[in-house]
């Protein structure tokens, strides 16, 4: 097993048995489900909306070269500097370079999963900059020095008490554990940061090819402030964020909010098409857009799984995933947890190292059903398994399946070894059942096994005939 797989299993075992964790996550997500269903019901045709969204992203992703070119030309026409990064390292270097050139001291950042993906904060801090996350959830996990737990709700795993503790420890300011008061503490602290920051960094939810704009979705206004006050604004986004036209957002913005957070539309949906333009009151003097590949083109080259680039990072598949709901976001050890992460991480970061994520699924398909852009998630997990075992088969597993074939296809052999052999073995099973000597221990440790019937169906059928 890879080191990532060992860590995953260890944390999964611990957290899936942690009843407090289970109650917290199931509780939070049940609340979300009610809201999501309520908002989905407002759509005249939710399934129709999914199909339109899938077609729109299909068009964008399958003509990505054309749309990227259009997107970039639009941005450049209004004075935006566009940078291209093939790797995470290149993206970090570009962004550190911009901050150095601007002699920045402090940087304010609004939530961006792409920045997590390239470990931007570490790079900026290492280069001597003071970086503060402005999204409340991200701010909290940054104070706790941990990764976001969820791509939409970063601090979902924490109770108000835990948040109060970290505020006390790091900010020396936590009047009570009321969410209201804790939020106001963060507001006060961060307001100063916005006003002082030299550089603002945001991610983007969509890139509009037609008009050369990035679209940023948020609820708190932190991204709006990040894009309004600092003299330099940088937006980092993956090349797959493209939608063809401005009006496509009329569909995507409410769909993202509905499945992402159970809202009909998020608090702020903002399109930025350049730095401050002549005649405008404010806004950054410079606007930089950093386009990141980081193996997205490798996924693009896999036609079978190309639709995983449709992803709008809404988190809907995480929210419904029974694996995610039991092991939690940190266990995955990836930037993108949950089903979408289990699909793309092996393709972004190495199949053999990360294939365990594709195996850690009951293939229930709740993710596929929830995905607003119809990514064939559950089937991609199967394809990853196929690719992984083709590339590097496990000798034992392969032998087992090789031996199983004659067994399953020769009735006399099946009857002798499985039906009769099973009955015989069962006599002794009671002696070791549920212990480590039990060959079925992985099952019987927590579950009982039904007995083999005195007369199997096939035996009954034969007798009857």
């Amino acid at each position, binding site marked *: 097993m890879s080191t990532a797989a060992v860590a995953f299993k260890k944390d999964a075992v611990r957290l899936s048995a942690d009843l407090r964790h289970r109650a917290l996550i199931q509780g939070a997500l049940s609340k979300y489900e009610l809201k999501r269903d309520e908002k989905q019901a407002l759509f*005249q*045709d939710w399934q*129709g*909306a999914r199909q*339109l969204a899938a*077609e*729109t992203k*299909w068009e964008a992703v*399958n003509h*990505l*070269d054309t749309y*990227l070119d259009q997107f970039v030309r639009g941005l450049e026409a*209004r004075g935006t500097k566009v*940078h*291209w990064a*093939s790797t995470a390292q*290149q993206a970090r270097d570009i962004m550190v370079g911009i901050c150095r050139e601007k002699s920045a001291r402090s940087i304010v950042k609004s939530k961006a999963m792409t920045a997590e993906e390239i470990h931007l904060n570490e790079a900026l801090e290492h280069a001597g900059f003071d970086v503060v996350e402005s*999204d*409340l959830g991200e701010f909290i996990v940054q104070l706790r020095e941990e990764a976001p737990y969820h791509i939409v*709700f970063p601090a979902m795993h*924490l109770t108000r008490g835990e*948040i109060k503790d970290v505020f006390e420890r790091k900010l020396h300011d936590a009047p009570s554990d009321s*969410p209201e008061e804790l*939020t106001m503490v963060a507001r006060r602290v961060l*307001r100063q940061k916005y006003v002082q920051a030299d550089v603002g960094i945001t991610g983007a939810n969509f890139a509009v090819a037609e*008009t050369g704009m990035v679209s940023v979705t948020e609820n*708190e*206004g*932190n991204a*709006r*402030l990040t894009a309004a*006050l600092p003299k330099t604004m940088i937006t980092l986004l993956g090349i797959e964020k493209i939608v*063809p*036209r401005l*009006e496509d957002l*009329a*569909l995507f*913005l*409410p769909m993202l909010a509905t499945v992402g*957070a159970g809202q*009909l*539309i998020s*608090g*702020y*949906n903002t399109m*930025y*098409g350049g730095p401050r*333009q002549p*005649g*405008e*009151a*404010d*806004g950054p003097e410079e606007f930089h857009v950093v386009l990141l*590949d980081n193996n997205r*083109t490798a996924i*693009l*080259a896999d036609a*079978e799984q190309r*639709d995983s680039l449709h992803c709008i990072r809404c988190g809907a598949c995480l929210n419904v995933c029974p694996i995610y709901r039991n092991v939690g976001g940190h266990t995955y050890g990836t930037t993108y947890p949950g089903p979408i992460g289990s699909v793309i991480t092996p393709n972004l970061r190495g199949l053999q190292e990360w294939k365990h994520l594709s195996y850690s699924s009951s293939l229930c398909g709740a993710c596929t059903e929830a995905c607003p852009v*119809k990514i064939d998630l559950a089937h991609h997990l199967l394809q990853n398994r196929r690719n992984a075992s083709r590339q590097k088969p496990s000798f034992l597993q392969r032998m087992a399946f090789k031996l199983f074939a004659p067994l399953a296809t020769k009735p006399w052999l099946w009857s002798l070894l499985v039906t009769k052999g099973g009955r015989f073995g069962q006599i002794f099973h009671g002696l070791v059942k549920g212990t480590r000597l039990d060959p079925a221990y992985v099952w019987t440790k927590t579950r009982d096994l039904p007995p083999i019937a005195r007369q199997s169906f096939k035996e009954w059928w034969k007798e009857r005939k």
Partner: protein
Amino acid sequence: MSERENILARVKEALTVAAPLPGSHHGAHAEPASLPTQEDHRRVLPLVGESFEERVALFAKNSDELRSDFKLLIDQSELVAALNKLRAAEGWTRVASHKGSLTDAACQALGLPVLLTDAGFDKTELEKCPVGISECDALVAQTGSVLVTSRSAGGRALSVLPPHHVVLARRGQLVPGLPEAFALVKQKYGADYPSMISFITGPSRTGDIERILVLGAHGPKKLTILCF
């Protein structure tokens, strides 16, 4: 080769193999993808009502749920009265705003010192203003959103930095849904877009602590929409 060329070359190479069409798994028939029309969007999105009255009612209902304060007023004099009431209730001693026909009249009527963002401003001063008063491009009935741009609403900061954002709108600015709002943006600005276009839906909000709603996370704690 530049990274731009490298990436675009990889993209082109990848796309030489065609991907299955959306919804075509397991041999199901699927039409080639084509971009949806505005009519397609309207057909699937939430209903918006037929008449102006229905749409105002929808906007009011959405505002209510979002905890925006929406007031439909008879005329400009009622608008001035509503503003004066807010001034008294919140004890404004100055306001932030921008140049515009509605805002000019409102500021004049209020008779308070005004920080005009379009005249060049100090962000620390704006931060201290108790209220930002702006115009908008549209109100969206479907979602309860206010559409502003950096050109129509005094730049980027005015609508998010002060703790209270007051939006002034005319009845004619109410549009049914998001498709119409985007069509309006295109028609109004298509030749030269402002650097920021923003749909503001309710006061600033967060649910990051135990999924409990708190207003005023970073942006305005209050959003008032005065429409006449």
